């Protein structure tokens, strides 16, 4: 049999389920196959072996011209590629004996194996680095031993021949290269061939000046021109609270900075901004921050009113400093007037104690409070009043009052008057109803008919008491009239008081006058004569000393009053109060 194909390698992708992969060339033994599983992503190759383990495989079709299959115990995954390649043994196994048969089959098989070996060499040669057939290479051999070749690259020498060459970088280091002020930096690089070390030098800039305008500090504290390029303070103790003024020259020595300094009070806020003073070139010390509150122009310098905020307490004389200013924003619009405290007479104040404090509105009896969050609305509404609920009541009109059927509205005096004025039936009949207060029942309102009231009146009526009946004071069937009441012996007839200054008490009863007849001697004259001299006078005296009172010389028209002191001598009483009961 001839060998008409040069195929000696098959490649296929795994899918996680296929275990059988075909090879399409002839092998004389299953060991002539090399099976490689390659992980696609990493390129890692795994040469598998014949067997029954999870990574092993078996072979079919050995000796077949069309090939056979490699059957994996575990199917390669979709991330794996299967390569099956023939790898014939480089041996010759056909043994011809002299004077014996020369069988064609074994001879052809030996030729086939040789062809296989040639094909396999060609395949491997096809994967090597070569120079083209139209060019030459004098020496394709590398003569350096392994130690010499270590850590070197494969290259070509000046003749184009192979060599192991240096150039492999084994380490890299970087360092700063200082520069001088005003000059560009110079980068450096060096490579040590023996070690493969690459050293790079990178230029770095010098420490920069602190931001701001450069001025020198003067420890002179006088409120005067500090001189070009200088500034001073009104106190060298910057942090003690006594340093309240900066005196800044109009020039930093080269440029006019007046407009800049005098713009520091542009803000409408009380705090105009903050001025920061840093030492140069090292801004760490001194470092002082002042709060600026005002600016005042002066000849050749500007006065800046400041308040110490933070930083150093002093600056050395002639120290070079950098001044920078941070402007405060303009003052915002004033807040609306709001009340913090809500007071109710006789009640505790409601005070907003914190910005998160919440004012809670509570509805009292008869009042409802509702809120609408969407419109920021609080609504106070009175509840409708009823016999069981306090609330808001609508006033009844005169017409509604007159009709007298409405149970939800309140009657007003005007409505009641109008309703009464509008009554047309003014004729009272015995069946009409009368409402009255029962004095014997806590004045509870009750009603009865007119006839019921009339029934209370005795059929004979009541007659006015006579003088004799009044004086007898024993009848229960006659009525006392104003004209007869004075006839009652129980009624006070005369009462009053007089004073030493010759005047009578205004509200006297039954007295026409009192006669002052001398020290401690008086006479009470009655408006109406008593019926007899059997009346009962009583008097008391009010004064600073003890007094006794005696009545004498009584008549139906008057009675004498004598007032004595404790020694029995006639004496004025101060004030004398008297009353007399009797029959007039």
């Amino acid at each position, binding site marked *: 049999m001839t060998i008409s194909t040069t195929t000696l390698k098959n490649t296929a992708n795994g899918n996680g389920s296929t275990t059988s992969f075909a090879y399409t060339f002839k092998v004389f033994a299953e060991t002539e196959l090399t099976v490689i599983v390659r992980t696609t992503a990493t390129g890692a190759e795994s040469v598998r072996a014949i067997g029954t383990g999870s990574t092993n495989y078996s072979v079919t079709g050995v000796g077949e011209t069309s090939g056979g299959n490699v059957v994996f115990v575990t199917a390669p995954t979709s991330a794996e590629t299967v390569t099956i390649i023939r790898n014939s043994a480089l041996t010759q196994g056909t043994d011809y004996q002299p004077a014996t048969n020369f069988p064609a089959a074994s001879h052809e098989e030996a030729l086939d194996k040789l062809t296989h070996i040639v094909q396999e060499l060609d395949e491997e040669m096809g994967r090597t680095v070569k120079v083209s057939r139209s060019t030459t290479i004098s020496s394709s051999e590398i003569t350096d031993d392994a130690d010499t070749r270590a850590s070197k690259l494969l290259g070509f020498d000046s003749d184009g021949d192979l060599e192991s060459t240096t150039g492999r970088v084994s380490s890299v280091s970087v360092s700063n290269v200082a520069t001088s002020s005003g000059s560009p930096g110079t980068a450096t690089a060096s490579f040590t061939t023996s070690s493969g070390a690459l050293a790079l030098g990178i230029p770095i800039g010098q420490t920069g000046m602190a931001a701001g305008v450069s001025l020198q500090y003067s420890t002179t504290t006088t409120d005067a021109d500090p001189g070009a390029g200088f500034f001073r303070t009104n106190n060298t103790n910057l942090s003690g609270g006594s340093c309240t003024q900066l005196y800044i020259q109009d020039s930093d020595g080269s440029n006019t900075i007046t407009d800049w300094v005098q713009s520091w009070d542009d803000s409408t806020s009380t705090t105009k901004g903050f001025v920061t003073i840093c030492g140069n070139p090292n801004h760490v010390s001194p470092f002082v921050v002042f709060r600026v509150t005002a600016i005042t122009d002066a000849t050749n310098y500007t006065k800046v009113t400041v308040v110490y905020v933070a930083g150093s307490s002093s600056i050395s004389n002639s120290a070079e400093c950098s001044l920078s200013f941070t402007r405060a924003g303009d003052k915002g619009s004033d807040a609306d007037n709001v009340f913090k405290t809500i007071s109710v007479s006789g009640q505790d104040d409601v005070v907003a104690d914190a910005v998160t404090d919440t004012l809670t509105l509570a509805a009292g009896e008869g009042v409802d409070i509702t809120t609408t969050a969407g419109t920021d609305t609080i609504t106070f509404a009175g509840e409708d009043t009823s016999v069981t609920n306090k609330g808001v009541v609508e006033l009844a009109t005169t017409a509604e009052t007159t009709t007298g059927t409405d149970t939800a509205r309140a009657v007003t005096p005007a409505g009641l008057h109008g309703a009464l004025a509008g009554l047309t039936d003014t004729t009272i009949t015995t069946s009409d109803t009368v409402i009255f207060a029962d004095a014997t029942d806590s004045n509870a309102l009750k009603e009865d008919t007119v006839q019921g009231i009339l029934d209370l009146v005795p059929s004979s009526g009541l007659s006015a008491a006579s003088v004799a009946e009044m004086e007898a004071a024993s009848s229960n069937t006659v009525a006392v009239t104003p004209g007869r009441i004075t006839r009652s012996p129980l009624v006070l007839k005369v009462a009053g008081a007089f004073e030493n*200054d010759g005047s009578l008490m205004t509200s*006297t009863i039954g007295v026409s*006058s009192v006669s002052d007849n001398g020290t401690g001697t008086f006479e009470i004259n009655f408006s109406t004569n008593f019926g007899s001299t059997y009346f009962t006078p009583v008097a008391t005296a009010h004064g600073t000393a003890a007094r006794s009172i005696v009545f004498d010389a009584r008549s139906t028209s008057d009675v004498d009053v004598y007032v004595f002191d404790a020694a029995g001598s006639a004496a004025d009483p101060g004030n004398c109060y008297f009353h007399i009961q009797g029959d007039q």
Partner: protein
Amino acid sequence: MGKKNITFTKSDGSMAFLMPSEKFLEQYETEEAGLNALIQKDIPEALRSSAKIVENSALPVSRKFRNAWKQNDTAVVEDMTKARAIHLDRIREYRNAELVKEDVNYQRALEANDADAQSAVATKKQTLRDLPATFNLSGATNGAELDALWPSELPERADD
């Protein structure tokens, strides 16, 4: 309308006055009519001729010499003879109290056999006895001046 009184002279020559009741006067159309009615009603007929209607302010403010009051044409004044007698009675009243005190002082001096003290008490008592006769009240022309005169030998008067 100021308060008014009706003065009149009693049969013993002393002066009295009526304090009218306003309620009584209100019965009449005018105050004068009421006062005249009061004269007719409350002053004995024999004395009515002396009745005069005066303002209350016409009466002396102090009643210390009330029993010395008398009418004149326009006002009520003190009868100074009666007033001096009233004032002397008051001096005697205080003098008598002082004599009682000096009796006690004399008794103590006697018990102490203090002749000087006894003599001093005797002298003072004699002075007190002579006071009504020796104390000069003639210079006073009205009650207020009279009341201001008070012997230095006597203690201050209480508010009487």
